[in-house]
């Protein structure tokens, strides 16, 4: 088992005719073919005005609605440029796509506020934007992560960051732990899915034995997650917070990674997680070991 992505996931890409969109669609298709040869997992793409054509054997459709109707797609990977990304997310939701994974970095925050409002009560789940995507190892990869570093296993991984997630995955591999599913939730101030919802899903997932959550400075998602863990999460959780040395008031790369008004520091987040029984890695080199410790402590 896994969360979000399984054998029934059929993927299309919005923005497939762009350079990144095509490259990563090819990578995702190759990943699926490697593990599930002969199955149709990546079923096409959408670029308005290019419907009916083909790009590298991908069928192109003008709208998501059409792509869904003709391919049965239930998941969309979004590479549309920032000015049009919010519209692309809304189009996917309108077409009834269940899982929307928005990779695009640089979406205006008020656009995301409009998206968040529109998606209230919707059946679609948005992951991102500004994220590496979702992977269920050996089943399907919907994102830009290097597939080969992910091995199937018992750890549910949730992270705000890209390369730091790869680092964590690598460290997990070094201690013999794979992932049930790894989810990059994104580093923007407003994102579709947060730690709390994913922790709940992993808690319910029989294949997941422990969770690793990787947060960073800015906002209070990690603190709310800590409160949630204390109340509802029984499985072992390990954590890491990036930005212990970041100065206040400066944006550290990600739009959301900024300590403002004295709030959102790494220190307060780590303290909240520890108070909730999470094994917190103080060093980014100890993320894999922290998961091992969290699992050992519960046995």
């Amino acid at each position: 088992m896994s969360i979000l992505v399984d054998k029934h996931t059929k993927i299309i890409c919005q923005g497939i005719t762009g350079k990144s969109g095509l490259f990563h669609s090819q990578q995702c298709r190759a990943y699926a073919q490697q593990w599930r040869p002969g199955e149709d997992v990546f079923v096409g793409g959408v670029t308005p005005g290019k419907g009916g054509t083909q790009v590298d054997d991908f069928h192109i459709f003008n709208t998501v609605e059409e792509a869904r109707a003709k391919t049965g797609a239930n998941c969309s990977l979004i590479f549309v440029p920032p000015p049009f990304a919010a519209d692309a997310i809304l189009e996917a939701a309108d077409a009834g796509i269940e899982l929307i994974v928005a990779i695009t970095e640089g979406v205006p925050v008020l656009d995301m506020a409009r998206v968040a409002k529109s998606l209230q009560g919707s059946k679609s789940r948005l992951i991102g934007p500004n994220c590496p995507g979702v992977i269920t190892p050996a089943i399907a990869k919907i994102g830009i992560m290097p597939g080969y570093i992910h091995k199937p296993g018992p750890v549910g991984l949730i992270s705000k960051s890209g390369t730091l997630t790869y680092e964590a995955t690598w460290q997990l591999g070094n201690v013999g732990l794979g992932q049930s599913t790894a989810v990059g939730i994104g580093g923007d101030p407003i994102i579709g899915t947060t730690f709390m919802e994913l922790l709940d899903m992993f808690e319910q997932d029989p294949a997941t034995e422990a969770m690793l959550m990787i947060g960073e400075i800015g906002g209070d998602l990690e603190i709310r997650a800590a409160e949630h863990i204390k109340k509802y999460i029984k499985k072992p959780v390990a954590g890491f917070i990036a930005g212990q040395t970041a100065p206040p008031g400066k944006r550290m790369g990600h739009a959301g990674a900024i300590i403002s008004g004295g709030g959102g520091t790494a220190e307060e987040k780590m303290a909240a997680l520890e108070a909730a029984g999470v094994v917190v890695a103080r060093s980014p080199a100890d993320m894999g070991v922290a998961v091992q410790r969290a699992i050992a402590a519960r046995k």
Partner: protein
Amino acid sequence: MKIHEYQAKQLLASAGVTVPKGIVAKTPDEAATAFEQLGGAIAVVKSQIHAGGRGKGRFKEHPQQGGVVLVKSSAEAKEVAARMLGNTLVTIQTGDEGKVVNTLLVEQGLKIARELYLGCVVDRAAAGPILIVSTEGGMDIEEVAHSHPEKIIHEPFDVVFGLNSFQARKLAFRLGLEGNALKNAEKFFRQVCRFFLDHDCSMTEINPLVVTEDGDLLVLDAKVTFDDNALFRHQDLLSLRDLSEEQPSEVQAQKSGLSYVKLDGDLGCLVNGAGLAMSTMDLIKLHGGEPANFLDVGGGANVDQVTEAFRIILADPNVKGILVNIFGGIMKCDTIVTALLSAYDNIGIKVPLVVRLEGTNVELARKMLAESGKKITTGINLTDAAQKAVAAIKV
């Protein structure tokens, strides 16, 4: 993107928000003329820099001179302006180096009855915009939030429709406004929220918001920042950027598509990915070093960008060594090493360089490094690399 107070007030005024009469002055003579044009018995001369704390700030060249002062004649306005313009104002937010004042705002004096606080930001938890008001105007709102959280009122508003009239009235009543002030507040609050949405602001803060004896509401001080990601649809705002207020190396990095923040330490770092870059800083600190910067070369860095990244790190005179930390994903390690070696040749790196590589094509990349004949130390993992880098600059 931040803008100056005078620019914020001009924009707010054109959006229908009431601001005091004010005139921009760039010379002492212009300040004197401004005083006369305003025609009052008093005026306020305000230094225009992006940092806050200007009133309590002092000029390096004139330690008695504050950054915001009340003047009673055009002659006095001229004298004060002469002490401010071209000189360096140090405030609690500028750091010891201070900021050079190039522009003044000369503003009419007001008969102030009350000072309130008003701010609009995007609230992450509510996933939308929020209006914050308080009776404690003119204070540091973060301190108020800490010491008297009950004095801060939060009101989320709709990202499309803005603040509704009933919401504005509710807030005005809770602030204890009456008569004219109550009527004016409804319009004022709604227009500020509209301004926030229409301009894709990250923050619009009016502190203090002044209520005059006549019940007028006016913007006494304003801080406006825009969402950098939305500037593509506000080309008219780009001209308001004042590059002299920004760290030159950060501006240079931005032009090259790099994300760079200068810090105070002496160990430079070059990393791919924002999360890993932050973590690398943390790692340096954990092992007894001090990071000189945050630098994310991004996911698709090429030779030019990596070269530029080295150039920017090395331009910082504090930098005694560099730690390169790359986790190759889609970006292959050998591509990074090619860029790194080329940058090494182009720039001539003279400080110790410690490189830690992991991920796609790492074996090939390590071989290339080893065969390059360059004095580059490799770290076998994160901890090893950080320890070696910190040790290398302590010698």
